[in-house]
């Protein structure tokens, strides 16, 4: 179905003038291209979610339960008592505005309700009205407003125009985590059955088959077998990839897009080639076949349900510890919640690299190590032979994926790996990388088609920084360590910076890897290497 095509110059002409009537009197405009479709009732039912029905945001009647106000206010009361952080975030904001222009959605849309301070105010105003003495007595004078259908519609629009990336939190003098406010907003919406399909259906698939795509065990094996054939034709070496192997030392969990999507898949080839080369005793799992967790974008309960399989599978297979692949939000769940949510995993051992002997002390509690840390350690100890010239056809920059960057501080390892496998690496401007990295604009479960305009707007600041290095240094490859990035940055680049492709960190590792006994035919995409030039850097 052909839609009128979005044009970059039209999207880039952004109106930052604030509507004169004030924000409380500006009604939500559910304009096509700015919101996501409602959850398919079959998926909602499968997960046992409240109020499953066919509904769409563009329809006037959202078919809410009759006592919807009570449900939301009770839900808010419960969460205020359960999460001290939420109570503090509701009370402490002085509306200084330090966060206002830090949000990629505000920069790309000019809509004041995308200023993080105002996004939080959408919820805070209802909190004041029903939970504070000042709000109860003084009403709008104290910044309070009653909960109406239009408020609910506004929440739906703006809590799904936030990617929970937490860039704004870096600049908040109080450290308010606006992602947590969005998470609470979404939880409240979900109590009414106001979930979006791009989150609910992957979550339902994940609950049914172990992964967001709904791939069953024989399909998983089929894809892995295909990858092994591909590796054989590239390296001339037959590589093994054990599946569900009891007694393996390490369980390896990847996002499902790694064995399905493009360009994720080339990174998957990179992992398998690397593990073969170092002789790692590991196993994949058809049950823990998803590292990602769209439950995080739905509710803490859903996150917990979907995450439980990782420790359960580690226990069943009898592994010692776990390595996780290149996935973004997965690492917020693993690093910050898994241990207390579904742990303690005291049946596992504190991770120690069997190849270098390095203990991963940062993962002593979760027992789960990021692949970039694992690989960086291998390279640091000279355990793999690398030929950087095999990436000479790429001029590379690195996008810090939001969650590995801001939720776990993973800044140096991916850069160390990149500089060890490429000759041409260039950083984007410093206020757009590391903890100040700009989001892809499509994270937190909104990376689909119906809201493409909003994604291109939200991704504009990231794309703009890529354009800078593209023009200045001829960068033609954007490397990253997140599956959502790999799915959503290619269309973003095509829109704003044509000529820049997207790749997994481990695709570049796989390209540079010199395997014992190899008869290489080209890079992991099946392309011939650039003509031999530049010095070889053997690590």
């Amino acid at each position: 179905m052909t839609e009128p095509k979005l044009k970059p110059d039209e999207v880039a002409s952004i109106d930052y003038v604030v509507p004169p009537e004030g924000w409380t009197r500006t009604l939500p405009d559910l304009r096509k291209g700015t919101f996501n479709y409602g959850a398919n009732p079959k998926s909602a039912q499968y997960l046992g979610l409240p109020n499953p029905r066919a509904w769409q945001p563009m329809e006037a009647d959202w078919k809410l339960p009759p006592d919807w106000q009570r449900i939301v206010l009770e839900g808010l009361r419960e969460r205020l008592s359960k999460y001290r952080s939420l109570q503090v975030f509701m009370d402490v904001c002085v509306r200084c505005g330090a966060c206002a222009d830090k949000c990629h959605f505000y920069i790309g849309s000019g809509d004041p309700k995308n200023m993080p301070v105002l996004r939080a105010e959408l919820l805070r105003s209802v909190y004041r009205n029903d939970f504070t003495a000042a709000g109860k007595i003084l009403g709008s004078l104290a910044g309070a407003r009653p909960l109406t259908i239009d408020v609910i519609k506004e929440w739906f629009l703006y809590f799904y125009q936030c990617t929970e990336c937490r860039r704004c939190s870096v600049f908040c003098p109080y450290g308010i985590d606006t992602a947590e406010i969005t998470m609470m907003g979404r939880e409240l919406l979900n109590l009414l059955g106001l979930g979006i399909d791009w989150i609910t259906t992957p979550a339902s698939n994940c609950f049914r088959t172990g992964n967001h795509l709904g791939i069953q065990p024989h399909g998983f094996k089929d894809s892995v077998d295909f990858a092994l054939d591909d590796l054989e034709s590239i390296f001339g070496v037959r590589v093994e990839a054990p599946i569900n192997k009891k007694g393996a030392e390490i369980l390896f969990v990847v996002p499902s897009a790694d064995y399905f999507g493009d360009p994720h898949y080339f990174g998957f080839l990179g992992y398998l080639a690397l593990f073969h080369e170092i002789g790692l005793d590991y196993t994949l799992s058809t049950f823990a076949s998803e590292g990602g967790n769209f439950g995080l974008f739905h509710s803490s309960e859903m996150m917990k349900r979907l995450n439980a399989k990782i420790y359960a599978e580690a226990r069943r297979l009898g592994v010692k510890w776990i390595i996780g692949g290149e996935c973004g939000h997965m690492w917020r769940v693993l690093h910050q919640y898994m241990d207390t949510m579904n742990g303690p995993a005291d049946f596992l051992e504190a991770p120690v690299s069997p190849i270098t002997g390095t203990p991963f002390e940062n993962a002593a509690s979760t027992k789960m190590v990021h692949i970039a840390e694992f690989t960086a350690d291998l390279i640091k100890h000279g355990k793999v032979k690398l030929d950087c010239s095999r990436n000479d056809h790429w001029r590379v920059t690195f996008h810090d994926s939001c969650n590995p960057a801001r939720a776990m501080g993973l800044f140096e390892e991916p850069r160390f790996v990149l500089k060890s496998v490429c000759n041409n690496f260039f950083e984007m401007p410093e206020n757009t990388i590391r903890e100040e990295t700009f989001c892809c604009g499509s994270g937190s479960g909104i990376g689909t088609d119906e809201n493409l305009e909003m994604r291109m707007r939200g991704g504009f600041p990231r794309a703009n920084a890529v354009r800078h290095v593209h023009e200045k240094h001829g960068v033609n490859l954007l490397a990253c360590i997140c599956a959502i990035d790999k799915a959503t940055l290619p269309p973003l680049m095509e829109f704003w910076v044509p000529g820049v492709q997207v790749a997994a960190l481990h695709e570049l590792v796989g390209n540079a890897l010199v395997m014992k006994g190899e008869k290489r035919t080209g890079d992991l995409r099946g392309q011939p290497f650039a003509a031999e030039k530049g010095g070889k850097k053997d690590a």
Partner: protein
Amino acid sequence: MPVFELGAVKIEVDEDGFMQEPDKWNEDIAKALATTEGVSEMSEEHWKLVHYLRDYYLKFGIAPMIRKLCKETSLPLKRIYELYPSGPAKGACKVAGLAKPTGCV
């Protein structure tokens, strides 16, 4: 749920026009769905893709990896986009009556 109707074909679809009950798929439905993808005439190559996707779906309950689709049909990705301008997942899968892949893809 929206209903898609063309000639004798009448099926439930989602907001993007994907079939809701893939098991009811047949070639007449494929031809009708193809018109929504700007394909007025199904050539041999169009069918080759659709039949491969269909067979894979019946075995595995999902679409194959794009790399696998290209390799097994011997059709490069560029050619697939020429045949189905919205691409393998959104174009060819829709015509083959498969659900849209979901998640980080």
